[in-house]
């Protein structure tokens, strides 16, 4: 009975199903492609007007319709590098603690808390930065830097609370979970036999970490740092709220500045003609930079986690973890 039924059982949806999923996949490519096309289309007038000089001009003057990328690019690079310098060591340190040192009962809740940080919306980081961090920074560390290190060009001028350094701090908070979680995955992918080999030679835990875990995971950890960097490049709302939004190359780390993303947020709603086109050209620049950084990062992370050369099977980084951090906040 069963055998005869099987041949006549209707193949529900079998014919349609592959086409539906293929259509869904194609739609994503189509969307990405059309976004790129629209940005290219919109950026074209500005490229015609300024050409490569756009990248070498430091004026941003909507009144005279003169636009250059330098202040925004500079602000983006400086804030992101500050964030990386702060969150990098902290994130790698946390990852080492979580994977090598934390007692088992602490590992899960601590990892979860760090990843929770990634789930906080950008605008909340921005609000926190503006209402909590900035006022504290103005009278605390900012004041200290102004009075004690004000003679250095780096810390000239009054401590306003908002500015390059504050933006860097907020960005550091935001990229910390990315760096921590990916570094932790990379470190976890270091085969256990390599750890035991070092222990068996009579090493302490710290020696084992310094001589086996970090060198073996070096490439992947670099990838984790680049992923964090990529995220901070593109961050818009939180930075806009704390950077002070001044279209100049900042004179010091305490001064207000502008990033590509914050400039777009600030001017896009009222921009038209050439200004709009210049903003889109900046957007295109950001798109290319971020794409390149992310691609290099993913390549590095996967190279380590799939290819730590050892006789033992490798534990690949969970794609899920990578994806989670790509979809975040941007």
């Amino acid at each position: 009975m069963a055998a005869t039924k099987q041949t006549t059982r209707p193949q529900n949806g079998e014919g349609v199903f592959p086409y539906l999923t293929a259509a869904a996949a194609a739609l994503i490519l189509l969307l990405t492609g059309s976004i790129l096309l629209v940005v290219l289309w919109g950026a074209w007038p500005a490229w015609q007007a300024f050409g490569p000089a756009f990248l070498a001009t430091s004026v941003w003057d909507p009144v005279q319709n003169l636009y250059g990328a330098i202040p925004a690019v500079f602000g983006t690079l400086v804030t992101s590098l500050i964030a990386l310098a702060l969150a990098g060591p902290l994130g790698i340190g946390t990852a080492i603690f979580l994977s090598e040192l934390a007692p088992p009962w602490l590992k899960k809740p601590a990892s979860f808390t760090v990843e929770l940080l990634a789930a906080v919306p950008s605008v909340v980081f921005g609000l926190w930065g503006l209402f909590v961090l900035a006022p504290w920074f103005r009278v605390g560390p900012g004041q200290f830097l102004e009075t004690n290190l004000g003679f250095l060009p780096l810390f000239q001028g009054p401590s306003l609370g908002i500015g390059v350094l504050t933006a860097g701090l907020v960005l550091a908070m935001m990229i910390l979970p990315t760096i921590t979680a990916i570094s932790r995955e990379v470190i976890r992918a270091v085969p256990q036999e390599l750890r035991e080999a070092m222990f068996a030679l009579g090493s302490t835990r710290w020696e084992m970490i310094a001589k086996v875990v970090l060198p073996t995971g070096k490439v992947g950890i670099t990838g984790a740092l680049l992923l964090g960097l990529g995220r901070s490049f593109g961050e818009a709302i939180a930075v806009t709220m704390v950077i002070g939004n001044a279209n100049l190359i900042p004179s010091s780390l305490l001064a207000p500045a502008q990033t590509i993303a914050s400039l777009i947020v600030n001017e896009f709603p009222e921009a038209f003609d050439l200004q709009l086109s210049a903003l889109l050209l900046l957007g295109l620049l950001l798109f290319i930079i971020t794409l390149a950084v992310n691609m290099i990062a993913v390549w590095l992370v996967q190279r380590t986690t799939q290819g730590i050369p050892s006789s033992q099977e490798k534990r690949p980084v969970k794609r899920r973890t990578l994806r989670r951090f790509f979809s975040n906040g941007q």
Partner: protein
Amino acid sequence: MTQSIAVQDLSVWFGRHQVLKNVSLYAKPKEVTALIGPSGCGKTTLLRCINRLHDLYSNATIHGKIMVGTENILGVNIDPVELRRRVGMIFQKPNPFPHLSIFENVAAGLRLHGLACGRAAAERVEACLRKAALWEEVKDSLDRPGIMLSGGQQQRLCIARALAIEPAVFLMDEPCASLDPVSTMRIEELIKELREDYTVIIVTHNMQQAARISQQTAFVLNGELVEAGPTAEMFIAAKDDRTEAYLTGQMG
């Protein structure tokens, strides 16, 4: 300096699960002691107690004594880090450090303990590679990564790495399990040579191997040491029926 290993009434639990039950075993200096028994019987656990690798995982409870020389290495005043320097360990799968060259793999222990550097280190590395019967094959490629070698060469590299810090005893956990017959023969030759200077305890699933290289054999079953004695005697006439059954392939 060769030292005997005496395991006395050793019991080990992982969580609530008892893995070893009152095991006692004496391994003479300059002899190879083979631990045989079916998978999961506790052989590896016993071996790893001797350099306290279980200390790294918090759920192990260990009772009893293990005397290396005249010292109870399970005692509270023993620093496991210092102990492991005196106890060489070879693992089931060759595990050279992937980021280090052949030379630096052997020198890893020397660098770790600041035993030798420069010319002295180079001499020590050469001596260890010669002793591990690997020198002739790698002398022109010392700068290449250790993982470029074949499995058997990697395992000899690991033996050279362990030799470099001059341990008193050698523990081997199925060192030939992932190797082809030719590589296995070379490692066995090497173990016979090591015996002249070291106490060796080797876990093996290969009873022919136990017969070929060991002077004493111990049969472990379900966490208990069923029988231990001179290899020749045990393979000809085992005292216990269970040993007999295992050796003749009727069990495990």
